[in-house]
C-alpha cells in the first residue's frame, strides 16, 4: 500500500464510527485523534497493510478497548453471557422502550462494535474478523446476539424467535 501523506479522507468515517462507539462527541473525537496519531507512528508499517480501512478501524478498536479497560469511558459493560435484564415492557411501554442510541449503549461493547461495522461501514464479515482480530464465527455470534438484544431493547421483542406475545412498537 502506498503511503499517503494525508489521512483526511478517512476522518469522516472514523468519526462516524467513533461517535456511535463512544456515544458522545468529545470521547469520540479523542478516539479519532489517538487513532490518527498511532497510525502515523506506525506509518513505516503501511507497506504491509493490504486493507487500510481494516487497519485504521483495527487501531481504533484497540484504543477503544484500552479506554474501556481503563474505565475512562462511561459504559454499561455487559458481556456476551449476561442475561438480558430487559423485561417486556409493562404498563408504561413507551417509557420502557429505549430509543436507538440508548439501546446501542446498552449493548455489550464487543457486540456494538460488530453491529456498527456492519451497519455503518457495510463491512464484509470477513473484514470485520480481520479488523477486530477475532474468528469469523465470533463475528457472527456477536452480530446475532447484538441484533437480538437491540430488537429486544427497541421493540420489546422476545429474543427467542417464535415467541408470540403481543409486543408494543414505538412509532417514531
Amino acid at each position, binding site marked *: 500500500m502506498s503511503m499517503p*501523506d494525508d489521512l483526511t479522507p478517512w476522518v469522516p468515517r472514523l*468519526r462516524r464510527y467513533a461517535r456511535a462507539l463512544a456515544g458522545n462527541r468529545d470521547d469520540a473525537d479523542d478516539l479519532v485523534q489517538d487513532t490518527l496519531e498511532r497510525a502515523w507512528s506506525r506509518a513505516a508499517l503501511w507497506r504491509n497493510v493490504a486493507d487500510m480501512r481494516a487497519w485504521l478501524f483495527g487501531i481504533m478498536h484497540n484504543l477503544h478497548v*484500552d479506554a474501556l479497560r481503563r474505565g475512562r469511558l462511561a459504559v454499561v459493560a455487559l458481556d456476551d453471557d449476561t442475561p438480558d435484564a430487559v423485561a417486556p415492557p409493562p404498563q408504561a411501554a413507551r417509557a420502557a422502550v429505549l430509543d436507538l442510541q440508548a439501546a446501542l449503549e446498552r449493548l455489550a461493547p464487543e457486540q456494538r462494535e460488530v453491529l456498527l461495522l456492519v451497519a455503518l461501514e457495510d463491512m464484509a464479515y470477513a473484514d470485520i474478523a480481520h479488523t477486530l482480530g477475532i474468528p469469523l464465527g465470533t463475528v457472527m455470534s456477536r452480530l446475532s446476539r447484538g441484533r437480538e438484544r437491540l430488537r429486544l431493547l427497541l421493540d420489546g421483542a422476545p429474543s427467542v424467535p*417464535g415467541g408470540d406475545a403481543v409486543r408494543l412498537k414505538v412509532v417514531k
Partner: protein
Amino acid sequence: MTSAAPPPSDLPATEAELHAFADGQLTPERAAEVQAWLAHRPDEAARVRAWETHKRELRALFDPVLDEAVPPALQRASRRPAPWFGRPALAAAAALLLVLAAGGSGWALRGAHDAPLLAAAPRANDFAARAAIAHTVYAPEVKRPVEVDAAHEEQLVTWLSRRMGAAMKAPHLQALGYALEGGRLLPGERGPVAQFMYRDEAGHRLTLYVSNEKTGGAATGLSNTDLRGGGDARPDTAFRFASEGPVNVFWWVDGPFRYAITAPADRAALTQVSAEVYRQLAAAQP
C-alpha cells in the same frame, strides 16, 4: 406471495445466513433461496425485517457525522507529522546526531569494556550499555517486570523522585502505542538510577533509563562545580543511537540528566519515542 415459490428446497437458512441476507452478503442465488424460505416463515421474516430497519435507523442517526466540519485538532492529526528532526526543539540536537552501530560486537550483553568500538567512543557509551543491560535483564520478566506498577504511578514517581533527589516524571507514550507498566530503582555507576517500563500491544517492552549520576570519567573526574552549574552547554548533548541485535538504544543528555530508550524496535520508532519523551520532559521543566 408467490404461489410458484421454488419447491421449499428447505435447505434451511442458518442464523448466519439470515444475517448475511439482511446485509446483502449472500450470493444472488442463495439470497433468492433464503427469500423463498422466509416467505413461509413470518416470525423469521419479521426478525430479518427488524434488523434491516435498525440498520437503516443507525445510518440515519450517525451519517450526519460525515458532514460535520472536522475540528482543527483532527485536521492536524490527519496530516503526516513533521519528521522529528524538523521540529525546532530538536533541530540542534539532530544536527549532532551520532550514530554508533555496534554491529556484532556484543557490547550490550557482554559488558562494555572489551568492545573495541567503545574505547574510542565517548563515555556515554557505558551509560547506553548499562541501559541495554538493564533492559535485557528486566524486559523478559513476566511476573515482576517492575517494582511499582502503573496503577500506582503517583507513588512510583514520588518514590523515584525522593531516591533520585530530583523530580521524576513518567512520560506518557500511549499515543505511540506504549503503555506504562511501572518502574524500578536500580544501582547505577555511583548511585541510583530509575527505569520506567512500557509495553506495546504485541507485548514488546520498551524501557526508559534515567540517571542523574555525576558524569565524568571515573579516573579523571570533573569538578563538582562543573557538574552542578546550571545550564552549561555540555559537549555531549546529542541524540545517539546504538544497536545490538534486536535491541536498539537511543540516548541523550539533558542538563544533569541522562536518558536512554531501549527497545527491540527499529530506529525510526525509537527516534519517535525519544523525541516524544524529550518533548514531554522539556514541557515539564519549569
